[in-house]
């Protein structure tokens, strides 16, 4: 059984390896890169929502912190991209740690509201601090250069982002089946039961919140470099909702579901472009259909159907 846990990982690795040779042009490669970046963020968010059972409706705020740390620090202050990226991650981590104690005293709807507020505050700050962030117009971001090597072109980006995703998938699979991960899932299953066996619930919620915030921030920095431009949309409420939707559609507490959810919801708007003006309606209808017929999400539902958990 421990071996078969990684079957999905191998399948994804193979798909990622052959995909660029099958894609007709850079438009699709660009789409694939955006899918992979989203998959990484969603994976981190699924650890928090699906595995630990703690909702965050403000996660785009952390993506925004990373994206803007990269944009502002490299452009205005001449920091190296790596330093800016780490500073963003540190900032996101510290913020997450500071708010975690009070915020995770809340549960359910109240926790949702509190995280929503947190995300909105970050979003408002980047929109209003126009002198630094360019305000609603956004600002350009220089290319990602590490030492003397500069990452350029969709091909290079594709391989880098693929590597990040595979590594994160591997680490996540390990984590959820480690003592830390089991404690995390246990506090979701029964908070009081996990407490009486010695799980410091507040500490674990804090740790996974910080981890997913730091990861979101790092991927925000990556996105900023890749796109070459940031706008406040990256941190706003709709992006947060989009991320949560990817978690739910793919499947809560499903590592591979995170990837499937991110891939589908990133591709869907493109696939629906033909509907002209009706695409949001079609988008919403598909989401409703998924939730009514597959409330557990795609991957868990299909896995159950084919006799595997």
């Amino acid at each position, binding site marked *: 059984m421990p071996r078969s846990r990684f079957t999905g990982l191998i399948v994804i690795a193979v798909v990622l390896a052959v995909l660029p040779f099958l894609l007709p042009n850079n438009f699709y490669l660009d789409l694939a890169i955006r899918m992979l970046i989203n998959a990484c963020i969603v994976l981190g968010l699924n650890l928090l929502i699906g595995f630990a059972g703690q909702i965050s409706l403000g996660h785009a705020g952390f993506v925004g912190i990373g994206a803007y740390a990269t944009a502002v620090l490299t452009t205005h202050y001449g920091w190296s991209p790596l330093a800016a990226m780490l500073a963003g991650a540190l900032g996101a981590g510290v913020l997450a740690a500071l708010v975690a104690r009070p915020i995770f005293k809340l549960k359910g709807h109240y926790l949702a509201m509190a995280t929503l507020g947190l995300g909105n505050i970050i979003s408002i700050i980047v929109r209003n601090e126009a002198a630094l962030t360019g305000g609603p117009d956004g600002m350009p971001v220089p290319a990602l250069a590490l030492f003397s090597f500069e990452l350029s072109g969709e091909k290079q980006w594709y391989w880098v982002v693929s590597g990040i995703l595979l590594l994160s998938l591997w*680490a*996540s699979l*390990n*984590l959820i*089946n*480690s*003592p*830390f*991960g*089991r*404690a995390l*899932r*246990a506090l*979701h*299953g*029964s908070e*009081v*039961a*996990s*407490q*009486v*066996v*010695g*799980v*410091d*619930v507040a500490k674990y919620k804090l*740790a996974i919140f910080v*981890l997913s915030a730091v990861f979101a921030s790092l991927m925000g920095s990556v996105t900023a470099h890749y796109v070459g431009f940031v706008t406040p949309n990256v941190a706003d409420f709709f992006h947060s909702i989009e991320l949560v939707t990817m978690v739910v559609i793919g499947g809560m*507490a499903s590592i591979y579901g995170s990837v499937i959810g991110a891939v589908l919801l990133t591709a869907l708007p493109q696939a629906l472009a033909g509907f002209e003006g009706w695409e949001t309606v079609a988008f919403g209808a598909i989401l409703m259909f998924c939730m009514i017929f597959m409330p557990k999400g795609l991957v868990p539902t299909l896995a159950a159907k084919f006799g595997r*958990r």
Partner: protein
Amino acid sequence: MALLEVSNLTKIFGGVRAVQNVSFAVDAGIVYSVIGPNGAGKTTLFNLITGIYVPSEGQIRLDGRDIAGVAPHELARFGMARTFQNLQVCMNMTALENVMVGAHLRLDRNLFKGALRFPSIARRDAVLREEAAELMRLVGLEAFTDAHADAMPYGALKRLEIARALAAQPRVLFLDEPAAGLNPKETGEVDILVRKVADSGVTVVLVEHDMKMVMNISDQILVLDYGRKLAEGTAAEVRRNPDVIAAYLGTHQ
């Protein structure tokens, strides 16, 4: 000195005195039962001792250390484990994983070592898997070793909680109605299991409604009524106590 000493313990919920001035002591290695009519304060007493509730007054000493108001996850460090009357099984995990969680404090819980799957973590987990399977055999759940928790029947889940508590290798185990909802055959099995656990040196504190079981396996019995201590003694003593008979059967006026 007694392993567990409770003195003048009181818990007030609003205007209700759920537990009033209760004092008792539990010696190491015995089976100590708490009985009483519904609403007598048995579960409240359990929740006070195991840190779920903070006492309004009184002391709780484990090994002479005052533990009143200490958080449950801290108490686990002192060798305290418990099960719940209303099941608290993690339905999002397998049966075996539920038991493995019980060993939480005995494991290296480092996030990064876990994520990078250090060989030490992988080795320990492999051993733990065996230990957990062994515990499931002990409580009679060998048929469910590969089962997901949400696919198990009620009676099995009650025993799964006991296995999880034992995985912590506790010194004192609190069982809140382990036989509730079980059929007579299952009750008999839990009966034997509790005795087996006690014989292995774990002190057992038990809340139970099944009188046959209580009278069978208890070394000492505490009787509560309306939150007060009504009587304490061996099964024979408690059975003869007129106050206890009155509380359970009523009195002729």
